[in-house]
């Protein structure tokens, strides 16, 4: 009887736990995604279309937030810190430190506070250049110090109450005070910045990349005839992040274009 009672209790606890995860935005139904259709029809030549705008925010540690939020940009290139905070807290995907290759990572803000105006270089997508090392994409990523664990907010409940994300990493220059967020949502990595004024601007600590709606990405364009990955531009960063997602999460979870990348990496693996 005790055993039965314990089992009932455990079962109930498990359901409570699942409901908490549901409340935190975890999907309750997973759909298996084999490389299937994509690989049958396209394999290495596959491309995918980003149907709605995707923006990527990279901080000085190489953390990356991916979402559809916007960040206001001053005419001199500086970014609005309040927008940065809300972009981070609303992001669909958050990749941990070291996820962005070095060329995409901005300089850290100086300890003595915020720098005033001035840009830290241009934002031209095509200035970055990696690769040519004769190594595969994941090897290149591994050498960039990637950490594969990341957070998927794609299915989070966007209607949840509460304010903006808390910030305690002190890397947001010019934050006009912060509102702590103690809701312990699973995607909350406790470093989201928050600004109350929305009028502060920063030229350090973050790079912001944008991919407009209906952009087509063809991963093969980032590989030369020797099979080396040549990662460049915003689309290149997106491919890098997709490969990281794939390495950790497999061909599932809704990162746009993941099946295409999966078929390519599987192809190289089986070569």
């Amino acid at each position, binding site marked *: 009887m005790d055993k039965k009672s314990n089992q009932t209790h455990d079962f109930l606890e498990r359901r409570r736990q699942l409901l908490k995860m549901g409340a935190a935005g975890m999907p309750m139904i*997973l759909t*298996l*995604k*084999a*490389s*299937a*259709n994509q*690989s*049958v029809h396209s*394999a*290495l*030549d596959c491309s995918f279309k980003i149907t709605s705008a995707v923006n990527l925010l990279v901080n000085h540690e190489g953390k990356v937030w991916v979402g559809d939020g916007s960040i206001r940009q001053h005419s001199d290139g500086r970014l609005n810190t309040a927008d940065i905070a809300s972009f981070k807290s609303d992001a669909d995907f958050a990749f941990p430190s070291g996820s962005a290759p070095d060329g995409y990572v901005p300089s850290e803000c100086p300890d003595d506070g915020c720098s005033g105006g001035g840009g830290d270089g241009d934002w031209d997508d095509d200035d970055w250049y990696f690769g040519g090392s*004769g*190594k*595969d994409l*994941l*090897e290149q990523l591994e050498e960039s110090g990637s950490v594969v664990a990341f957070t998927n907010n794609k299915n989070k409940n966007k209607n949840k109450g509460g304010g903006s994300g808390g910030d305690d990493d002190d890397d947001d220059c010019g934050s006009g005070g912060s509102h702590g967020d103690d809701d312990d949502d699973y995607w909350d990595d406790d470093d989201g910045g928050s600004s109350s004024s929305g009028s502060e601007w920063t030229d350090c600590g973050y790079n912001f990349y944008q991919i407009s709606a209906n952009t087509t990405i063809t991963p*093969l364009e980032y*590989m030369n*005839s*020797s*099979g*080396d990955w040549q990662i460049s531009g915003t689309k290149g960063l997106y491919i890098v992040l997709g490969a990281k997602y794939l*390495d950790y999460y*497999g*061909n*599932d979870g809704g990162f746009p274009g993941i099946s295409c990348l*999966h078929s390519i*990496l*599987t*192809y*190289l*693996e*089986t*070569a």
Partner: protein
Amino acid sequence: MTAVRVGTLATRRVGAALAAGRLNLHLGPFSTALQSHSAKVTRYFCDLYRDCLVTLNEDEIVDYTLRVGAPNLLRRFVRPQIVPDPGFHFPALPLPAHMAPLALEMGMNLTAALQCFRFVMFHAGVVAKNDNAVMIAAHSGGGKSTLTAAMMEAGYRLLSDEFAILHRSRPVLQPYPRPVSLKNASIDVVQAFAGNDAVSTRLEGTPKGTIAYRRARRADVEAMNQVAVPKLLIFPHFTDGRQPGVTQVEPADAAMRLVAGSPNYQVVGEAAFESTMAMFDSLACYEISYGNTEDSVRLVEDLFQETGA
């Protein structure tokens, strides 16, 4: 024409048949018509497929056709390149001509992975003892092929290095014993215990680094129609110098991981679901971590015995 073993044919004859596109390889459940003008393909094929059966007949009905050759006429002569052409649009990366064996093996993988719907294919190495099978699934660099080759030396027969080929109607695995693909440091490891003769010459500077192939043995090829029952699914993680360790994986999680690496699960549909689920009914699933090949073999053997196979 009666099928004959490649090793009984003169290299010149194999080359002529390959050039004319009338060499049909009969291996496991598939027959593949091969065509190539490359002498390197011919030499490699005669060596690594010497125990396999072929027919020399251009009128035969086959499952797949594969041409391995220059992407265009100029590339046969100017900085020669080679590319696999499985007969459907597939813009594979052209490789330098000396990588012809790689192009052949890539092409063989493609033909089966993208055109087979009679079976459910998973990306895994498979070995078996007493017709009980161990499936070895891994990410790139995880050690799948090295472990597969090592298990061959431990008395297991090779079913396949690349594909676990599951029947649609019952949970048994079909052999497709092609050469085992070895990369970089694993080549020395396998060569050390399998011997020089078992391993092909090395291809340097490929997209995956240095590559060589370990030949399927005569006994593996002779058992190519002998199915095996999957008992154990292993996800290996090799890290140099690491202490051996075993972690049980929930079948539900293992199924998700295995299906993610299937090129045709979605297309085969309900039969794939039913057969895959039936397979997991009696499959023990583990992650193993290790720092050397000896440890990995010992771990797998221990787990295999625990299954009662």
